[in-house]
């Protein structure tokens, strides 16, 4: 590590600040009928308040399995957590019961997924789905939750929230649906947001808007964001730090500028080389 990087690393956060979320030596296996897949192997990641950590990798790299581990959302079986810990607020999330995790999900740590069409209930008004999170976590009355949900829809830039509140997911465009998902995730004021390929299913102009929205809201609420993506350009545009994953392992991690300027790992270099660029080579 160069002197240069050390000073930069220290510059953007107090030296003694505890990371908000800390994944230490996490290993996850998928025990299938005929084979065992080591999906995540000895992965360590940290993210601080107000910071965006991008976890980038291709399919099968273990990036999603890592993200889902935080809230215990990998299907068990076949998933088995074989080692490591995930520290949040002094607790090891891997040791919490389903009930205890339920209190953290959506309130302290929230998730946004790739496909809002499958993450939203097709038979419920979108507003009610936002309100439900609040009622579940805060015990607000119906009317209070409705007001707060309307505010949340407004905050994520949904025009005419009162009218949109009473619409069903299929009546919204992909971009609006993803905004609803973000409202659902943020309405509980989480300290950590895990976004798993949040813009992969969207058109490029909509992707731009959603990425802008995520960054704006992150600054506003001083959230830590873990952004799971396959797209290095998205990383370049949004992240402070990046972890590159390949075949279940983190092959390289560090400040975005360092990793893009001086990739240390062969795989990172190859990924950078093969990603198509808009500017002429």
């Amino acid at each position, binding site marked *: 590590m160069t002197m240069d990087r050390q000073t930069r690393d220290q510059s953007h956060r107090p030296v003694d600040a505890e990371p908000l979320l800390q994944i230490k030596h996490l290993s996850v296996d998928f025990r*299938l*009928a*005929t*084979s065992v*897949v080591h999906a995540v192997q000895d992965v360590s990641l940290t993210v601080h308040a107000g910071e965006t950590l991008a976890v980038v990798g291709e399919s099968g790299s273990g990036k999603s399995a890592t993200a889902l581990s935080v809230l215990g959302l990998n299907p068990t079986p076949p998933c088995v957590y074989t080692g490591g810990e995930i520290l949040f607020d002094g607790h090891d999330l891997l040791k919490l019961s389903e009930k205890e995790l339920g209190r953290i999900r959506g309130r302290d740590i929230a998730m946004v997924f790739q496909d809002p069409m499958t993450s939203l209930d097709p038979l419920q008004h979108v507003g009610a789905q936002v309100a439900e999170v609040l009622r579940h976590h805060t015990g607000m009355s119906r009317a209070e939750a409705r007001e707060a949900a309307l505010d949340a829809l407004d905050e994520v830039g949904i025009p005419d929230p009162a009218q949109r509140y009473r619409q069903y997911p299929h009546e919204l465009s992909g971009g609006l649906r993803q905004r609803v998902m973000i409202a659902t995730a943020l309405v509980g004021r989480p300290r950590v947001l895990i976004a798993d390929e949040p813009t992969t299913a969207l058109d490029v102009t909509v992707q731009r808007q959603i990425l802008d929205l995520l960054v704006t809201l992150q600054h506003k609420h001083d959230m830590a964001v873990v952004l799971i993506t396959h797209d290095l350009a998205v990383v370049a545009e949004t992240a402070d730090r990046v972890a590159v994953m390949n075949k279940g392992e983190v092959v390289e991690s560090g400040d975005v500028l360092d990793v893009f300027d001086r990739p240390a790992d062969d795989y990172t270099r190859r990924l950078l080389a093969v990603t198509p660029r808009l500017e002429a080579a």
Partner: protein
Amino acid sequence: MTVTAPAAADHVPAGTPTVGSGSVVLRALLRNKLAVLALAVLVLLLAAALFAPLIAPYDPNAQDLLLRLRPPAWQDGGSGAHPLGTDQLGRDMLSRVIYGARVSLLVGAGAALLAGAIGTVVGLVSGYFGGWADRVLMRLADIQLAFPALLLALAIVGFLGSGLWYVILVLGFTGWVSYARVVRSEVMSLRSRDFITEARAIGVTDATIMRRHLLPNVMAPLATIATLHVAAAVVTEASLSYLGLGVPKETVTWGSMLADGQLYLGTSWWVAVFPGIALMLTSLAINITGDALRDVADPKAYRR
């Protein structure tokens, strides 16, 4: 971009065993213990049906009025000569149950084949072409469904007379709708799949697309409905025979045996219970085999 020799794709070992072949399906089926048991019952039944004259100890219609309503061998008054006892005319129960399997399986398989053939053709045409062909065929299906199958069966048998083949025809012509519906909805979802688009772009004819691309992909759901239908047809045949409207009196069927036995239930339970057990075991075994088949018939189930 510079031109190089074709970039080598990830290494694929050639010549490893492939899936989808019969032996692999069979092997997967054998891993399911319940299915093995069900399959064994079916094989036994099939053997009984095929070789009934060799296996059955007596002529199923041979009466012995001196030995009427003898209980099974393990009860007081029973004897090893008639292990399952005799009926009200002194006919050997074991022989009759064995011969009964013939009619039951023939009717079940025949009805399922006939209904499956009609329903598959209707469903393929309806789902692939859509439009007016679909509307006409589906209205026809609605009309067909509006007739209670059993009532229709009663009417036809009453009109044409009773007989094994009539029963098969009736059950075949009343059962095709469920095949057609399932095939149609499968085909409608397959129709928009890329491989159908590609086949059309190549210039493959509609008939070939239906035969080569659609039919094999609807076989799994077809097999499931067919097994359910075989089981239902076996029971319906029994109901018809029970009502005296199925096959002629001298043909032994489980249904007519049940009807006979009903009168003696209070005193000689075995006359009704044995054909009842045979009927239940058969339909259970067919259903379990069908479920297991559906689970293993899909080549994608072997991924990894």
